């Protein structure tokens, strides 16, 4: 006998106990050469019994995935019809052909989706690992997790998936080891000659999404617990935001990316040296959110799409990049305006020399005297000192860059050089009419050009293809000076939702009296500008849905004002309650959105949480009227975040560019057999209703999305009162945009008591026309094991 493996406690690779016995006499007999290795000893303090699926492997939740995928079937839109992943190819998979490996088009598309989601989840996991390692190095493994007063269930996703109740940073390492393990298997399944079935690829997509949510939760609860972020605070501070809040007279540091330690290093250095307030710390993307959570004097410039325009404004003296979603040629942009560049992540070295071990003053001198365009520093504290010293030394020398970089006259002169080749228009992701704008600008009318500003996503591809070498992006941004004057308020990310808040609103959400929880998440790849996100969230906040936000979408929400000059964060409270507008924080804070849904099942409905994924997901799908909206979703991370929500039973809507994820998960309201569920009270299989109708939906316009959001908030468990409220919003919104009652409203009326009183006559008339029949409101479940009584 070589080795025992004791599965239930074998959670991680670190060896806590290793016993080697040459010979042991036992009641069973004599054992020779016995080796016992116990990976980790868990001190069992979790009073809740372990559920059916602790640390599930790929196969363990497959039946749940198939239950979902049978109802929400994939519609594949091959973005590429060829496969070039191995040397058999290229293989043409179109029109029913198979590749040399045997894969068909559907499987190839789902394989690419899985690859994208593996990239996304690996990125969050890597981020979480770096954060946990950084915090352990600074504060030790045994530092307790503390999400704030009123948060008893500190890590709902970790508890639900792994069965671990994490108490310290050390416990989070265990969780990440499990995620690592699963990610390796998931990625391996995309190799040539492995998985061959589209639905099994899809099941793995859902599994990787769940891993992604674990990693995000680990990352955010670690940084909240240790770094002094707001702890579930509905009154987290309002952060100055926008381009206009930067004090040009001071040295300016720009931080961009997602991983906060280097930004925290800058803030620490400023505080320790009495310089806070004398140097501007400004951020973009999620690092801005987290730096503002770390210190509210950080200024949030804007979302990822503003990276280039901000550097071109000349304001930042120093550009500090960490990881994820950073435009990879920012160093070139920084060079053009004599700003210095500091890269800080092993994942993003930019070809720079590693100066981590060099004396600070030497590095600063090299940067300020332009001996090097940029440096690579892996030590967050040293990044802080170098960035601040370099910014202070550089700012007086860079004053000429801090004025408007391109004048009105220069824009007109440039426009006259346009040769009208249309390359810019045909390259612009939003197909903006740049050529027409250039024509008008050449005649002195800059209005069309400045009108493009709102819809420009800052990709700068137009400049790369311009045959006349025009600085098109800069011309659009500075055709007007509105941009430079913009100031907003964004509420700092509050982190988790309190258990006490869940107790207060769990009932109204599950019964439908709070008509829905809508999360605006993700990137800023908007097809028609960010105003869509603002208008959608305002619409539903006014209707007293609960609005959650994270990442770039959370910034976009704060970038528009009402007639009184107030942003949504100033108009609506930050509490998880009807009519609240809640910024949970950065990308990794999305975990708290999933966590809130899970907590409703656990805290309000008392469903067992520990390692009980299927039951909780079944509860969320059938009872929690939550919808995610990633209107500008761009990244692979956005894909993996969405897939984690799908497995949990939360539908996701994306904007038009989201169609490039090449696969929708759509229900068929016309197929009654797809909507048969168990009535847990009786065990009967009954036709329920198409709710929620879709799991992954792409909308063309914000109006379509608004109507679909209201519809997807309906759940089979809604009480008649709750359903009447939800139907009144659905019908009212549909009427507002399409001037009629929704043609499918009869599908969602179960009994006459569901009908909103103010629309009774017209809905009754429609029901009559559709030959509607009353239905029983079931106690809905898709899991036979949850049936309480069988008949």
């Amino acid at each position, binding site marked *: 006998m070589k080795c025992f493996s004791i599965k239930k406690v074998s959670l991680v690779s670190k060896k806590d106990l290793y016993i080697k016995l040459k010979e042991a006499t036992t009641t069973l007999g004599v054992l020779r050469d016995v080796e016992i290795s116990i990976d980790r000893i868990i001190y069992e303090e979790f009073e809740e019994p372990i559920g059916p699926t602790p640390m599930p492997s790929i196969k363990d939740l497959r039946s749940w995935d198939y239950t979902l995928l049978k109802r929400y*079937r994939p*519609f*594949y*839109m*091959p*973005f*590429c*019809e*060829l496969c070039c992943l191995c040397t058999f190819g290229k293989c*043409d998979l*179109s*029109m*029913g052909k198979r590749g040399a490996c045997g894969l068909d*088009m*559907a499987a190839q598309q789902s394989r690419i989706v899985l690859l994208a989601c593996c990239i996304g989840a690996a990125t969050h996991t890597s981020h979480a690992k770096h954060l946990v390692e950084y915090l352990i190095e600074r504060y030790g493994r045994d530092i307790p997790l503390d999400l704030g007063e009123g948060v008893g269930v500190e890590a709902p996703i970790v508890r639900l998936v792994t069965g671990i109740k994490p108490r310290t940073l050390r416990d989070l390492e265990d969780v990440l080891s499990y995620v690592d393990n699963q990610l390796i298997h998931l990625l391996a399944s995309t190799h040539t000659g492995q998985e061959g079935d589209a639905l099994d690829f899809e099941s793995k997509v859902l599994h990787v999404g769940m891993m992604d949510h674990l990693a995000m939760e680990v990352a955010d609860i670690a940084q909240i617990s240790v770094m002094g972020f707001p702890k579930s605070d509905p009154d987290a501070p309002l952060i100055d935001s926008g381009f206009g809040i930067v004090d040009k007279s001071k040295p300016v540091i720009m931080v961009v990316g997602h991983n906060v330690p280097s930004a925290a290093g800058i803030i620490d250095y400023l505080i320790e040296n009495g310089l806070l307030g004398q140097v501007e710390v400004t951020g973009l993307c999620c690092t801005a959110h987290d730096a503002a959570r770390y210190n509210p004097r950080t200024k949030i410039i804007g979302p990822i799409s503003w990276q280039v325009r901000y550097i071109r404004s000349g304001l930042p003296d120093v550009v500090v990049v960490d990881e994820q979603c950073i435009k990879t040629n920012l160093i070139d942009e920084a060079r053009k305006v004599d700003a210095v560049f500091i890269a800080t992540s092993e994942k993003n070295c930019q070809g720079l020399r590693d100066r981590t071990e060099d004396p600070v003053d030497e590095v600063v001198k090299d940067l300020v005297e332009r001996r090097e365009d940029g440096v690579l520093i892996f030590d967050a504290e040293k990044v802080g000192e170098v960035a601040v010293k370099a910014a202070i030394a550089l700012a007086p020398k860079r004053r000429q860059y801090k004025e408007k970089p391109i004048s009105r006259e220069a824009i007109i002169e440039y426009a006259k050089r346009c040769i009208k080749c249309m*390359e810019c228009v*045909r*390259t612009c*992701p939003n*197909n903006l009419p740049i050529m027409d704008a250039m024509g008008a600008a050449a005649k002195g009318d800059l209005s069309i050009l400045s009108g493009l500003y709102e819809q420009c996503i800052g990709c700068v591809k137009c400049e790369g*293809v311009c045959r006349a070498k025009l600085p098109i992006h800069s011309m659009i941004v500075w055709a007007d000076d509105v941009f430079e004057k913009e100031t907003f308020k964004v509420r700092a990310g509050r982190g988790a939702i309190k258990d006490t808040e869940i107790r207060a609103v769990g009932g109204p959400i599950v019964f439908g009296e709070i008509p829905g929880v809508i999360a605006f998440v993700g990137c800023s790849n908007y*097809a028609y500008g960010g105003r869509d996100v603002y208008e959608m969230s305002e619409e539903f906040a006014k209707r007293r849905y609960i609005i959650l936000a994270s990442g770039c979408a959370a910034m976009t929400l704060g970038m528009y004002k009402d007639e009184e000059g107030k942003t949504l964060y100033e108009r609506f409270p930050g509490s998880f309650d009807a009519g609240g507008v809640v910024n949970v924080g950065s990308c990794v804070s999305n975990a708290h959105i999933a966590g809130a849904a899970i907590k409703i099942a656990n805290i309000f409905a008392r469903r067992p949480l520990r390692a009980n994924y299927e039951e909780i997901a079944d509860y969320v799908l059938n009872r929690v009227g939550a919808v995610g909206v990633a209107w500008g979703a761009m990244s692979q991370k956005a894909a993996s975040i969405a897939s984690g929500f799908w497995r949990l039973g939360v539908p996701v809507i994306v904007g*038009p*560019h989201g*169609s*490039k994820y*090449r696969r*929708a998960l*759509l229900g*068929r309201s*016309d197929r009654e057999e797809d909507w048969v569920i168990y009535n847990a009270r009786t065990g009967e299989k009954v036709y329920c209703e198409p709710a929620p109708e*879709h799991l992954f*939906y*792409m*909308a*063309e*316009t914000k*109006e*379509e999305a608004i109507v*679909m959001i209201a519809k997807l908030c309906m759940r089979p468990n809604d009480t008649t009162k709750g359903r009447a409220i939800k139907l009144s919003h659905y019908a009212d919104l549909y009427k507002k*945009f*399409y*001037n*009629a009652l*929704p*043609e499918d409203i009869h599908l969602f009326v179960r009994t006459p008591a569901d009908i909103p009183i103010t629309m009774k006559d017209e809905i009754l008339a429609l029901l009559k026309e559709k030959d509607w029949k009353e239905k029983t409101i079931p106690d809905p479940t898709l899991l036979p094991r949850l049936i309480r009584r069988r008949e």
Partner: protein
Amino acid sequence: MWRSEPWMKAEVPGTRRATIIEKPELAAELLKQGGRILVVCGNGVSTVLSKRSLLDYIVDVAEAVDAHIATSSMAYAKIKSRLTNATWISPMEVAHRVPDPEWMGLDGKGAYKTMVFIGLPYYMTWLILTGLKNFAQSVKTISLDRFYQPNASWSLRNMNIGEWEQFLEALVNKLKA
């Protein structure tokens, strides 16, 4: 050459590309022989051209060939006021149903033989068409947008707005004749 390239430069298609409809006569013939036709409209159909709105042309086409219109665009109310055969449904959802051989169409009268696309963002149409091309091969697809859509069975070439309006006007006249 550029007139028969995908309008968006990077949207390089697969090995089978749409046949270009050079003349309105051919479009009219394809539609007349198209069997049961579903017209899928995006929000772009609200565009006003120099003589009429795009919507007017499309409703005329649909009426002439007894087609059903599917749209989730803001033009739905206007379309519905002129045409009974119109359903509010997202283009993606319709495309999802089409490959199902048992689906009887939005009016329950049978499967569609031809689908016409107009007014969606270029890349959305590009993607929906590639879905149909690969998973609903019995359905012929026609793009009436003014940009070449390589994943359709038949597509107009890239053209300017004036040329497009002339084309649509001629198409409507041919269908009504």
